[in-house]
């Protein structure tokens, strides 16, 4: 395969993954959750916890590096980094780990995400709920006085625009929700395991922010996930089959806009996201095209988020995400199975990092909705501000 200049091609691998239970009430601190996931990831990788010498944290995580390093008793921490914004970070967090390893700043890097997303700070409640505010670069003063407060409201605005431009329907969105639910029903650890969803169930779910319903929204979740990145050379001496990091990319759009989310509605297009330029960069670095991807984990805070990425990552033409989703292509056995652990919509919302774990499981062959013969695994991170994505492979292809 032809590969653009990409010094990190096949340089590193994900060698360990760990997770806590995903629940609606962990009953524990985020520090405890992060610690449990980190210990589990190290054990899975076959490395001693004390070998961890680097850490990458999401900028919205309440667990700081020093707190987790203290809890784990790390004597040799020599690299730490924060990556944001929020859900756009996860693949870029792995990219930071790769950069640290390749530059000799660390050898065994822990990437983690812990949140009591249901019982702690609930992202679904959004911003601007106080009595006053805005300013300081938040630009909330343009939005909050009108009762525009939540990510769900904003994604509903983007969904409506997609419907206006391309004729996308609720039934199209339903197929993304039902696909995730189907996969969750194969995954005993998913929050929605044992709760099948039909089209009638989807259409009967309460309208929260027309055009999006309850089942277009992901599940606020308590839990933590962690993974270990090291060099491919070292990975070959470790017990798990390495998920080789073929390429990582971050990206923004022209006129990317400030703030946490709402100013993104000022961009020229509401139906093309930073995932489009990020996809082009990622494929160039990997020397691959969408046809090479066997399985994908798309960030799905809402059904619409995943639908736009089907287009932006080139699995169908712009505007055809709805009919493509409804065709069955995204289900197990389809041309591009997505969100095989259930996604944020039905497994749980660990802010994009649980998608990396599932991307690794597909490479190992251990997913509960395993794509037979999967060798190339795409994982994407959140929208709409700025995003990141990566391609993992089974061995060096």
């Amino acid at each position, binding site marked *: 395969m032809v590969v653009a200049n990409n010094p990190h091609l096949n340089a590193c691998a994900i060698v360990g993954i760990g997770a806590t239970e995903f629940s609606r009430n962990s009953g524990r601190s985020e520090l405890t959750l992060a610690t449990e996931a980190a210990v589990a990831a190290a054990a899975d990788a076959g490395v001693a916890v004390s070998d961890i010498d680097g850490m990458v944290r999401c900028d919205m995580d309440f667990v700081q590096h020093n707190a987790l390093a203290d809890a784990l008793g790390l004597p040799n921490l020599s690299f730490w980094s924060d990556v944001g914004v929020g859900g756009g970070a996860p693949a870029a967090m792995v990219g930071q780990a790769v950069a640290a390893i390749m530059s000799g700043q660390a050898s065994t890097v822990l990437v983690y995400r812990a949140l009591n997303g249901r019982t702690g700070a609930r992202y679904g409640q959004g911003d601007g709920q106080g009595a006053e505010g805005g300013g300081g670069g938040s630009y909330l003063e343009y939005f909050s006085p009108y009762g525009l407060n939540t990510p769900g409201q904003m994604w509903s605005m983007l969904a409506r625009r997609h419907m206006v431009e391309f004729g996308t329907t609720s039934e199209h969105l339903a197929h993304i929700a039902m696909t995730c639910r189907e996969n969750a029903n194969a995954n005993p650890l998913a929050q929605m395991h044992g709760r099948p969803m039909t089209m009638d169930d989807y259409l009967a779910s309460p309208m929260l922010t027309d055009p999006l319903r309850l089942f277009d929204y992901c599940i606020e979740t308590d839990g933590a996930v962690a993974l270990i990145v090291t060099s491919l050379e070292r990975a070959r001496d470790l017990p798990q089959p390495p998920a080789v990091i073929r390429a990582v990319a971050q990206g923004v759009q022209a006129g990317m*806009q400030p703030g946490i989310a709402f100013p993104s509605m000022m961009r020229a297009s509401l139906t093309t996201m930073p995932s489009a330029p990020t996809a082009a960069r990622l494929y160039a670095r990997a020397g691959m095209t969408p046809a090479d991807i066997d399985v994908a984990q798309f960030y799905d805070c809402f059904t619409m988020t995943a639908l736009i990425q089907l287009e932006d990552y080139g699995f169908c033409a712009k505007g055809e995400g709805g009919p493509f989703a409804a065709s069955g292509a995204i289900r197990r056995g389809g041309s591009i199975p997505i969100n095989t652990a259930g996604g944020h919509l039905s497994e749980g919302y660990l802010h994009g990092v649980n998608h990396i774990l599932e991307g690794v499981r597909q490479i190992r062959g251990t997913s509960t909705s395993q794509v037979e013969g999967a060798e190339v695994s795409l994982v994407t991170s959140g929208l709409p501000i700025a995003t990141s994505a990566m391609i993992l492979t089974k061995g060096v292809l």
Partner: protein
Amino acid sequence: MTDLFVPTTTDHDTGGFWEAARRHQIAVLYCASCDAVLHMPKQYCRRCGSFDTAWRDVRPQGSVYSWIVVERQIHPAYPAPYTIALIELDDAREARLIGHLPGRVDLQAGQAMIAGFEDHETYTLPVWRLASV
């Protein structure tokens, strides 16, 4: 009843919008050198590199670019259902503003909207409605 959200009106980059609203005008920040619309407001023009900017009053009219109906109440002072419109300004299409319409309003893309102004003690809020109503 909980109070409405009170916007900050003195921010370095957005204060001009609220000064204009107090005068019952809609203002947009422009680059004074090349006329680019700088929205969300910021004091540097990425098109021509100028730091010379100016607020300019525009006609208080626009059209519906997208919209939602909020059925699940979040903020206690904003009773559901209500409709939120994303409005493109006729004079500055690069700038979009938000409109709040009580109840479920069956909007269509491109419908004409006009702004009025609601005076509060410390600020004035532009409020949008359908031009045809």
